[in-house]
């Protein structure tokens, strides 16, 4: 591998990814496992965005669930309306909402084009609004992290409180069709899987381009010294905003794809806990590398399923221990293992002082 040009390596990587996702996985996995993989890949899409915003931009966003949710609800609203048929209200609304007619803010989602656009644009718009406020006022670091976490909490409370129009805690469930395709049919479930896999690959390509562009370098510069960037004539708020908005769009798209894959969107998927789990996946995989977040998200979600099946009583310990060990002792995430193995082989004694931990981290990841 080492004597290939970077460009060749990238193409090889994408090729390999495509083979795994489009050929190997469908051939080897049962329908049930493949549908789980589809779900994990949705999380991976969120993770790619977090990798950009957090890994590169230093924006620890603990509220990605909000954007995931916006995308998911936008999609689910459309599908529910389509299931109900022209002029009808979704089942839950009649049951709990006792509304005489569809609320006005639901109506446009009947239009598939509007709904599809909304799954991406709505989260981006919200991220833009919030980001403009927050970044311009230079709220950052832990402030930003905790604020974004509170945003997730607030969003959940808001959704739950509007049971009649949002399905409350239940969320939107029992989604049967996807643009005319019956989701009960395993063939159509496969189609959904392929769409998700394709979107993931495309977004990876896009993100790679962003990370390696001048913008990507600038983003790292802003992370390291926001004020210095200002003295060079840039407005760092805008630089961060781009990463935040892109990450939000990805999360929204992931949420939208999650709905046909899993058949439900609910506040439980977008609150504080799932939002932290998104980030943990990224940390476990390796925040600053391109593929780290993807691997991490899939690994964490897969481990959650597998551990909880295998060790129903004790899997929480294992899950917790995994988070702790990887983040504390392998700051570069699983993606950095490769570099470490290589270093071990070179037998270089490592006398890093703790204060340089972060610096070393980035070198490793860049390697």
């Amino acid at each position: 591998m080492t004597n290939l040009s970077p460009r060749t390596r990238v193409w090889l990587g994408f090729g390999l990814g495509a083979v795994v996702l489009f050929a190997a996985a469908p051939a080897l996995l049962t329908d049930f496992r493949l549908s789980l993989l589809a779900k994990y890949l949705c999380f991976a899409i969120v993770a790619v965005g977090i990798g950009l915003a957090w890994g590169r931009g230093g924006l620890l966003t603990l509220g990605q669930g909000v954007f995931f949710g916006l995308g998911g609800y936008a999609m689910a609203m459309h599908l529910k309306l389509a299931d109900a048929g022209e002029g009808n209200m979704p089942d839950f609304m009649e049951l709990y909402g006792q509304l005489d007619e569809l609320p006005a803010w639901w109506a446009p989602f009947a239009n598939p084009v509007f709904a599809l656009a909304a799954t991406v644009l709505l989260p981006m718009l919200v991220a833009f609004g919030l980001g403009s406020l927050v970044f311009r006022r230079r709220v950052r670091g832990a402030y930003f992290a905790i604020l974004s976490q509170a945003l997730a909490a607030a969003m959940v409370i808001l959704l739950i409180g509007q049971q009649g129009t949002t399905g409350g805690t239940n969320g939107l469930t029992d989604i049967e069709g996807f643009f005319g395709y019956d989701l009960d049919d395993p063939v159509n479930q496969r189609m959904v899987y392929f769409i998700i896999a394709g979107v993931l690959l495309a977004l990876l390509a896009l993100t790679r381009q962003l990370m390696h562009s001048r913008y990507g370098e600038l983003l790292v510069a802003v992370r390291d010294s926001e004020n210095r960037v200002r003295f060079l004539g840039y407005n760092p708020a805008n630089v961060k905003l781009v990463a935040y908005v892109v990450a939000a769009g990805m999360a929204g798209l992931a949420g939208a794809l999650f709905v046909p894959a899993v058949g439900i969107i609910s506040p439980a998927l977008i609150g504080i806990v799932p939002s932290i789990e998104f980030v943990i996946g990224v940390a476990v995989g390796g925040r600053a590398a391109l593929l780290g977040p993807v691997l991490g998200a899939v690994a964490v979600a897969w481990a959650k399923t597998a551990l909880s099946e295998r060790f129903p009583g004790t899997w929480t310990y294992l899950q917790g221990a995994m988070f702790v060990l990887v983040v504390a002792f392998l700051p570069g995430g699983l993606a950095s293992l490769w570099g470490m193995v290589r270093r071990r082989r070179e037998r270089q004694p490592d006398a890093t002082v703790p204060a340089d931990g972060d610096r070393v981290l980035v070198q490793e990841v860049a390697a």
Partner: protein
Amino acid sequence: MLRIEGVHAGYGRSSVLHGVDVTVEDGTVAAVLGHNGAGKSTLLRVAIGLLKPKQGMVLFGGEDVTRLAPHVRVARGMAYVPQGQQCFPHLTTAENLQLVADGRRGGRQAMASALELFPALHGLLRRRAGLLSGGQRQQLAIARALITRPKLLLLDEPTEGIQPNVVAEIEQAVLSLAGDGLSVLLVEQHLGFALRAAHRYHVLESGRVTSSGAGGTGAEPAVRAALTV
């Protein structure tokens, strides 16, 4: 007082020092001179214990301190003024000093005499150190190191950013402290100052000591020659 023997050190995978020996005799001032990036600061970081050498050892007063944590070395009588006007930005000037005086016998007195050396700090005692000007912070940093009444003082470019008349005072202070038995390891770019103060000088080039000799203004041509090659 201080013997640095065969020290190899660096950061991560890069090595900076390649077998450095430097000795500071009791009650003398030794200067380390060299270009930017030669490894002078790295040497002082090894001496105080912020950086563990990959090889070699640090002896202080005859004791091997290579494995001791920085605060233990300070308790043994070392003091260090890092490069770059460092301070505790959210503590006031007074607190920056008080912090070091806390729990030390004669701390109060030591604080008073340190302030005497830098009268400019008097008016700034209640200002937070992070708001001070660069030179004020540097003065604070030296004062803070002196409060521990060290036996050995490690100074990394102490005159950087300090106004000329205060530089002169620092020079006087260093000389008089050395006269009272304090040993000093001084890293300086200000050759005039360094050589006037130093009993011995060492030139560091790319992590190796390339020449040494007796201090004094007379050494200046030799040092300049050593530095330009």
